[in-house]
């Protein structure tokens, strides 16, 4: 009897430890979030979301900045998704695992993941803004950002494809399907939820990034008229308000809260789109997987 209760005690202690650590960490994560909510709610309003900044952002709202941010994020996703898809497909199905092409691609992406964002910024400034003549523009910022989110996106895509591959590769081959057919019609639909999670993660990084965009997409807080216009992203706006504009802090928190709302909206849109695509591709609902 004694040993059983001891084992149970140990079990309870482990559960308590795990829950304690997890909830403690969540509480720590909540602290900055609550700071943002607490300070942000005082400024956030429809007025704030829909008007232009006044006095370098100390007054007014952030409407043009939200539009620029959306443009930058869409450009970066449009550029990074095909590249990441290629990388993920080649890593799971194309290259021989452990062979040198796979190793080179994987390592170069791992290194890319560790390049400091300042360096991406300087690189984008030199390549996209100067060499390719895009100037300080939403397009240049989005492309630079695409380089930065590429490793995150490629890794989660590869991860979910790999998971789908272990489950379905043999089955597809047994049916005599080509590798391409198995990939596109079986694995991709199965991996869609994972791919979607990867996109959300990449979006998150893209939205939270400052240093890259400070150097490439520009500083202008006007409503952008085209992708070649300079446009300030929300995080650059927050940076400027917090470090450069006296009295900018309240609106910095307001903008941070708006950024979180934007992310929630985008991630909801991505989830909805994924569900729709998965239904179209497999003729079933997500529930069956």
């Amino acid at each position: 009897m004694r040993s059983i209760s001891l084992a149970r005690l140990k079990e309870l202690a482990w559960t308590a430890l795990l829950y304690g650590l997890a909830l403690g960490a969540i509480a720590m994560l909540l602290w900055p979030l609550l700071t943002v909510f607490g300070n942000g709610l005082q400024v956030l309003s429809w007025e704030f979301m829909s008007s232009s900044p006044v006095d370098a952002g100390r007054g007014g709202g952030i409407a043009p900045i939200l539009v620029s941010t959306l443009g930058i994020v869409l450009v970066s996703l449009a550029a990074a998704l095909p590249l990441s898809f290629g990388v993920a497909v080649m890593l799971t199905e194309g290259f021989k695992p452990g062979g040198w092409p796979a190793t080179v691609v994987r390592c170069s992406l791992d290194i890319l993941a560790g390049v400091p964002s300042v360096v991406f910024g300087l690189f984008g400034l030199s390549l996209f803004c100067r060499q390719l003549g895009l100037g300080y523009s939403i397009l240049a910022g989005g492309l630079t950002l695409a380089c930065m989110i590429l490793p995150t996106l490629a890794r989660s895509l590869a991860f979910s494809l790999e998971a789908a591959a272990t489950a379905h590769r043999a089955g597809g081959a047994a049916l005599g399907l080509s590798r391409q057919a198995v990939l596109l019609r079986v694995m991709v639909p199965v991996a869609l939820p994972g791919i979607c999670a990867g996109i959300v993660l990449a979006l998150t990084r893209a939205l939270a990034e400052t240093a890259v965009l400070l150097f490439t997409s520009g500083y202008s807080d006007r409503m952008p008229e085209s992708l070649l216009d300079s446009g300030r992203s929300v995080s650059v706006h927050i940076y400027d308000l917090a470090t450069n504009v006296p009295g900018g802090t309240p609106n910095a928190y307001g903008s941070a809260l708006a950024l979180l709302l934007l992310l929630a909206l985008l991630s909801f849109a991505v989830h909805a789109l994924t569900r729709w695509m998965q239904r179209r591709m497999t003729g079933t609902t997500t529930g069956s997987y």
Partner: protein
Amino acid sequence: MTLPIIESISPPPSALRGWAFWSAMTMLALLGAAIVFLIVAFLLGEALPLISKGGFTRFFTDEGWWPRDASFNMTPMVVASLYLTVGALLVATPLSLAISLVTTFKAPSGLARLMRNLVELSAAVPTVVYGLWGVSAIVPIINLWSPPGASLLAGVLVVALMIIPTITVLTQSALQTVPVAYVQGAAALGVSENQTLLRIVVPAARQGIFSAMVLGAARAIGETMVVLMVCGNIVQVPTSLFEPVRALTANIALEMPYAMGDHRASLFVAGLLMLLLVSVLVAAGEWVGRRQREMGV
């Protein structure tokens, strides 16, 4: 309706289409891999004038970091970056693992979803906001304990908090790939739940967890804004957690706007050095991963 996919498959596509598809994928993958080489080439181009003047060793042997007097010793900043990364990883990994285990296996689904959403939400907080929060919340607390407050410890704590979402999200997906049969088998053998998690699930997912750690470390070492705001930015090799330090990234961000000539070139050398550090990190990760694979299966 469990096999709708098979019903809907058309005849195998022609070899030509397969070829086109795979070559397109290869092109995309190689293009993706090429970016890092482009970055290296560009950094080298900017840094070369200075490197050719005094060789590469001077960046470790000069008398100090006085860039305007042509003295470019980066050792203290490299050490600071490493300390910050290791420290943040040591703090963040157990916490992320705990969150992932709880959300994947232990918590009721409602609580698990709430926790997962909170983690994802905090990943979206811009680093500047973490920095602002660090300066107004963490630094004053450490300051009460041991001034000046802006220190290695403050950097470690805030950066750890910042990389928890990254590590957690990836660890969760690694845990989800552990075959259910392992868990069921362990339960059938009468192994307790926590023992199953710690002795079976975590080791089975260790490769995924490890790669999550590598990605977390890469984010930590590359982090700029937070480190710039909470670490105090003094160029020195710290002897305690409470001493201020300047990380390589912070140095780039701090001095780039005002640097010219050799000073500017030296900051590009710092960028190259960052790449080198990350490459070493990745190589170490690759090596450990390979060894684990060999030992594991």
